[in-house]
């Protein structure tokens, strides 16, 4: 909006900056606490000036098991995101290109995917736990990877669908006439046009998996604990060691924050499943 009145303009900008401060200042406190000594971090009166120490980072990484947790989280997140794209893209292609998006079959598939997205995870918590425990898929990353792949597929179908729904179907038909099969048409005519969406899906699925707490808490333990589970564990085990806890928080959040900033251009469209461009 263009404002001609300078006072309003200044108020508007002050408002924006106030909001950004509200978003960022708590994080500044998190980072500064992680650089303090244990004693300073626990001080009644905030310590404003201190020589930064990285001891808590080493402590969290080595003794606290954050190194191990990062490996576990990265494995689960990368594998489930890639599988999600591999399974989601063909389904989105089937329901927008092979069948027109308005066909009853397509609509039914998509409704099913939406239904699974809407339903809260408490529905499947106990059934999955009981089954996975019974067949030895708890306490290692496999069970959690399966669950996260499931959610990555839902995400991938909805995002790819939003990109492909208006993609001209003639291109696929031309490819079929040229003798490519469905998979050939998908890989050679569709995929080159949706690299942006693929990257956005990958990163959003990665973030979703990295941050997921409920199933991770239930299905992993020991070496397979993911980052959120390990960080949450610090609270009960080390109680008030805020320096170590915040250092672990910074380590665990950093990769995801960097990733998100890298892909922020695709973020809005991916996040709203195509609700905005």
């Amino acid at each position: 909006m263009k404002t001609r009145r300078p006072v309003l303009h200044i108020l508007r900008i002050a408002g924006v900056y106030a909001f950004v401060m509200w978003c960022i200042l708590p994080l500044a406190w998190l980072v500064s606490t992680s650089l303090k000594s244990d004693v300073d971090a626990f001080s009644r009166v905030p310590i404003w000036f201190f020589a930064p120490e990285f001891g808590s980072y080493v402590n969290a990484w080595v003794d606290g098991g954050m190194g191990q947790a990062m490996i576990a989280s990265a494995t689960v997140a990368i594998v489930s995101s890639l599988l999600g794209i591999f399974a989601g893209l063909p389904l989105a292609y089937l329901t927008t290109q092979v069948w027109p998006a308005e066909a009853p079959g397509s609509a039914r598939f998509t409704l099913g995917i939406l239904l699974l997205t809407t339903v809260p995870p408490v529905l499947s918590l106990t059934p999955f736990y009981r089954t996975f425990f019974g067949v030895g898929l708890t306490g290692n990353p496999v069970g959690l990877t399966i669950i996260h792949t499931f959610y990555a597929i839902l995400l991938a179908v909805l995002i790819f669908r939003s990109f492909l729904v208006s993609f001209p179907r003639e291109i696929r038909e031309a490819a079929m006439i040229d003798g490519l099969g469905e998979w050939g048409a998908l890989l050679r005519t569709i995929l080159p046009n949706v690299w942006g969406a693929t990257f956005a899906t990958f990163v959003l699925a990665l973030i979703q998996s990295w941050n997921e707490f409920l199933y991770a808490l239930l299905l992993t333990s020991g070496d397979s604990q993911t980052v959120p589970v390990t960080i949450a564990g610090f609270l009960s085990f080390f109680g008030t060691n805020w320096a170590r806890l915040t250092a672990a928080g910074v380590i665990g959040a950093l990769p995801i924050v960097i990733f998100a900033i890298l892909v922020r251009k695709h973020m809005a469209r991916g996040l709203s499943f195509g609700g905005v461009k």
Partner: protein
Amino acid sequence: MSAPATHQVTVKPDEREIAPPSRSPRGRRPRDILSRASLALPAAIIIVPLLVIIVVQGLQLVTHGENLLRPGSADRFVGFDNVLRAFSDPTLFGSIRVTLIYVFVGVGIEMVLGVAVALALHGRVPGKGILRALILIPMVLTPVVAGLMWRLLLDPTSGFINWFLDTVGIGGHAFLADPATALGTVILVEVWQNTPFVVIIVLAGLESLDPSPFEAAQVDGATGLRLLRHITLPLLVPVLSIVILLRVIDAVKTFAIINTMTKGGPGTSTLAISNYVYRIGFETFDIGYATTVGVLVSLAVLVILFPTTTRLMGLRVRKVRG
């Protein structure tokens, strides 16, 4: 049905030209059917077994009084006892109430604040690119870290917020230990974390609006609030509905923030539905009853939210056109 958005796909002109005239090879030969089925196969390999588990185990658990601490309890058939127990469980109704307050108040504040910030950000703002990147951070921050960070800030003895309130003379307060303030505090963190989502999507929506209605209205002399009320907000309705819906779907599932900040306490004052099911299932190990509560709540959520979801996403099973 107005689909929430139209989509643009850039097609190279030459590709368009080589497309054949309308007739398409729509064979129904077995090979075609197989190759089409193979497109759905990778997704089906993951999704179908999980759905089977939900149905089979779900039925078993709901009708049995299984407790993981009592061997043999898995075989104790109880019929509808679990369901009847749920309908007379005051803690369940309490946690539904907590969840409803969390969703309505939390998402309500996120929408008002988020739309206001998006409107303020739309236009010339110094440092806009950096601001947009910074706003993103709370949204993608691991919820467990967000919860613990706020717990640190709110700590009654060493937290910044209580020190600040003491210093300015208002007096500190153990916000998370007082049943009267705990839920409000948890909602504050929900708002902190998720308002950026609203800002980012509404801002993208604002930027993709067609400028001509604005120009026309300005020629007619409309400015400021009138422009906002009669042009901007009505044009934003599709985007706003999608944002509300996605926030509600997500907020109903809340678990991590509450689990790390209060574990549902003090008492049951912040016990949202996910936290309650987790508590029944994996702290008292009463997994038969936990499943029952999960199923009932999920059905309620679907009945309330799903019709809206399908409408807003522009989806309905309908006849093929043409």
